[in-house]
């Protein structure tokens, strides 16, 4: 017998976990994946990898994989196994029935950043051209939608200004609300390399994360601000920069709208943003705010990297604008070593954003209300399109409760587990008459579904992902789809069944359509990617092999100039009080990925088999909680139980947990407040109380629940 660890085939593809987009050689033996070897030519990872991409791939052959389509009349019925033809016909006729009964706009679609660009583009086409409305959203709604809004407003494009390697030329690195060593490990290592070489590090984060201090690195300034005070602190940093005239006037005069800059300087220089005023609000020493401001402005090359700690707030979009303002004011854009860069959480969340899976914009962030843009899609697709914005994901749930939304197509998402205020979402899901889910596994959301279409993992399909550095990478089919079809093929079948003729021979033809209709992707094709490996958008005649650094000469705004937004600090309505005196904030851990659909089904689960509540010893002691004891976490919205873990990473008054395990149900606790501009949920701030779960009976119940989970998992 052939040695099973010696591969007989190797395919270069792209990791589907975080937004770094590492290249891997996926090596198979007799049609089964046996090894993922980091690819040395990968332009994001240069041969490095983390323990998710390297080892967490067995989920694709998990026993939980659904490989036969399922339907049922009611969510209380058991599933019935059916043929593909029957499932597709049933989904199509049910969606049309709902539309006939409740109106064209009573249904919508959700796409996922776990899917390829081609699939995401196709799902939004399905919503707009087949369902006939703009009720299309994607999971970036709950993570980086404020990035699109805030960066579009200031620098013109909602995307990273740099390529990852640019950080090797940064002198000052400012990390805001992100923990790249856990969330984006390969980039985190690159950052640490640069810090070891002498770059200064500023970290703005409530937690003392590994990014703040770990082997061989230590932040020069750590602003451990109170959750919910980002905008106040960033305005205060701007205050110091303006008052001390540390801004780059030559850059602003040459590249930005001077009038708006003047208004902004007047606004942030107000005494109300002085470090002495903001310091106490944010729980910071005013001198540290000054130190951060001076360090950032001094450069000469200062680069900002930020994560969901900026966006997932009621002022998420405002926080992103603050970062845009700061980088423009200090002239930290348009060359290597500088920039403002969102660290995207999912493999293709930049693609999800770029390719029009939004209710208000087509691909390239162009408004559906723009007649000319809409006309170009109408001409290509041969249908009249809705000229009005559609419903956002949270508003779809609202509309379901209001009686005007009754059907959904969900590809690769699990909103019941991942979205906030779970009880509210479950109630909304129960109102639906037709929920079609396309996924690898039955999940929390499929409990409320009527049709289940078994999808394909990223190892089973062709297409592209766009990483956090705007890099379009090839995803290549490594093994045959377990359920028979690549995800894009399933959407095509559904489109045809609903009466819209769609014919694509392979995913590359969908990419060609994307290129035809989206200026930034104009030059991107399978052929180009075969030839040069990958390309960062914009890629067109002017940049036939893509663009590493944005904004070199002008900004992608009508007049070519960057601009400044006024960013008033508005405290969140979610406040602590005597009943809920602690602030809960949530995040991720290195070995697991988001809601854990994939990583929990691999051996990576051994490293982090449950979510724990990080709590300071002080807060625990005054509540009589010992390390490792089970505690109940309650908020205004709900409560759940998990194990307490003493931690020096969180200060007094703050508790932290992850959301990788469904049984933790942490989103029962999180609030329904959201960003003012985008409705991105405020996951990062929920007022809670933590009490010890004392009784033996409860402990037994928990143990039983855990045993049951192990049996079913």
């Amino acid at each position, binding site marked *: 017998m052939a040695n099973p660890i010696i591969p007989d085939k190797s395919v270069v593809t792209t990791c589907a976990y975080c937004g770094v987009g590492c290249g891997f050689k996926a090596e198979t033996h007799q049609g089964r994946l046996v090894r993922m070897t980091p690819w040395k030519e990968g332009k994001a990872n240069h041969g490095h990898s983390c323990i998710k991409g390297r080892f967490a791939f067995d989920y694709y052959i998990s026993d939980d994989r659904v490989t036969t389509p399922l339907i049922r009349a009611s969510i209380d019925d058991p599933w019935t196994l059916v043929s593909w033809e029957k499932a597709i016909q049933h989904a199509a006729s049910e969606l049309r029935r709902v539309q006939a009964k409740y109106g064209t706009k009573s249904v919508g679609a959700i796409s996922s950043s776990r899917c390829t660009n081609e699939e995401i583009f196709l799902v939004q086409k399905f919503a707009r051209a087949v369902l006939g409305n703009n009720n299309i959203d994607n999971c970036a709604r709950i993570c980086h939608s404020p990035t699109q809004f805030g960066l579009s407003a200031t620098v013109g494009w909602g995307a990273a200004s740099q390529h990852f390697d640019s950080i090797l030329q940064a002198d000052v690195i400012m990390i805001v609300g992100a923990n790249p060593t856990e969330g984006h490990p390969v980039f985190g290592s690159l950052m640490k390399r640069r810090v070891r070489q002498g770059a200064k590090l500023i970290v703005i984060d409530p937690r003392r994360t590994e990014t703040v201090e770990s082997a061989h690195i230590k932040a020069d300034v750590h602003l451990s601000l109170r959750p919910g005070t980002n905008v106040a602190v960033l305005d205060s940093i701007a205050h110091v920069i303006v008052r001390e005239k540390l801004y780059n006037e030559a850059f602003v005069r040459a590249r930005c709208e001077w009038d708006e800059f003047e208004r902004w300087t007047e606004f942030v220089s107000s005494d109300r943003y002085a470090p002495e005023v903001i310091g106490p609000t944010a729980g910071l020493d005013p001198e540290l705010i000054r130190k951060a401001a001076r360090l950032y402005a001094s450069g000469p090359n200062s680069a900002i990297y930020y994560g969901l700690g900026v966006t997932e707030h009621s002022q998420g979009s405002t926080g992103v604008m603050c970062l845009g303002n700061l980088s423009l004011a200090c002239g930290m854009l348009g060359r290597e070593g500088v920039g403002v860069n969102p660290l995207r959480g999912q493999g293709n969340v930049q693609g999800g954003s770029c390719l029009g899976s939004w209710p208000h914009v087509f691909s390239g962030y162009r408004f559906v*209300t723009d007649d000319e843009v809409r006309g170009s899609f109408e001409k290509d697709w041969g249908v009249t399109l809705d000229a009005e914005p559609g419903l956002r994901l949270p508003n779809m749930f609202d509309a379901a409760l209001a009686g005007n*939304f009754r059907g959904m197509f969900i590809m690769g998402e699990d909103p019941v587990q991942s979205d906030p205020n779970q009880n509210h979402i479950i109630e909304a899901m129960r109102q639906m008459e037709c929920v079609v889910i396309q996924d690898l596994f039955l999940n929390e959301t499929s409990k409320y579904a009527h049709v289940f279409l078994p999808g394909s993992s990223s190892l089973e399909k062709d297409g592209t992902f766009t990483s956090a550095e705007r890099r379009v990478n090839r995803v290549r089919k490594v093994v045959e789809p377990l359920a028979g079809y690549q995800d894009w093929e399933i959407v095509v079948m559904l489109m045809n069944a609903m009466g819209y003729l769609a014919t694509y021979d392979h995913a590359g033809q969908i990419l060609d359509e994307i290129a035809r209709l989206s200026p930034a992707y104009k030059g991107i094709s399978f052929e180009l990617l075969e030839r040069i490996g990958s390309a960062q958008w914009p890629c067109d005649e002017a940049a036939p092999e893509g663009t590493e650094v944005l904004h070199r000469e002008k900004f992608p705004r009508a007049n070519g100039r960057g601009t400044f937004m006024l960013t008033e600090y508005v405290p969140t309505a979610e406040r602590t009080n005597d009943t809920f005196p602690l602030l809960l904030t949530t995040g991720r851990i290195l070995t697991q990925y988001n809601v854990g659909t994939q990583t929990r089904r691999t051996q990576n689960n051994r490293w982090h088999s449950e979510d724990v509540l990080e709590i300071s010893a002080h807060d625990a002691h005054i509540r009589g909680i010992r390390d490792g004891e089970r505690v109940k976490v309650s908020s205004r919205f709900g409560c759940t139980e998990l194990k307490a873990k003493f931690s020096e990473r969180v200060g007094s008054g703050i508790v932290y947990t992850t959301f990788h395990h469904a049984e933790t149900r942490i989103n029962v606790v999180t609030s329904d407040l959201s960003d003012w501009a985008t409705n991105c949920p405020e996951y990062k701030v929920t007022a809670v109380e933590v009490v010890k779960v004392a009784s033996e009976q409860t402990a037994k119940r928990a143990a039983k629940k855990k045993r049951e989970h192990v049996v079913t998992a």
Partner: protein
Amino acid sequence: MSHKTAHAESPVPSRAVPLERLVVMANQIADFFSPYPPARRAEGIRNHLRTYWDPRMRQDLTEYIAAGGEGVSPAIVEGVRLLGSGPDPKGYYGPPKA
């Protein structure tokens, strides 16, 4: 746009988003634009509602304001008044236009 006050005596029935939530969302938008002078503030709100809100949400808010608009920020009332008459109906990113 309809300004009928047919629902004046009873709460306007929600088409998409419950009114209470709609008012919270609208007032958050008003808070953001508050540092801008009145004319730009109203235009910023108009542009935002026009380009980001489902028309049913705009219509519900418009009718609610026509019916008294309790709890709605005055800046939102000014912005809603401009709906349909703004300088750039297709929408734009960036600071509200003067």
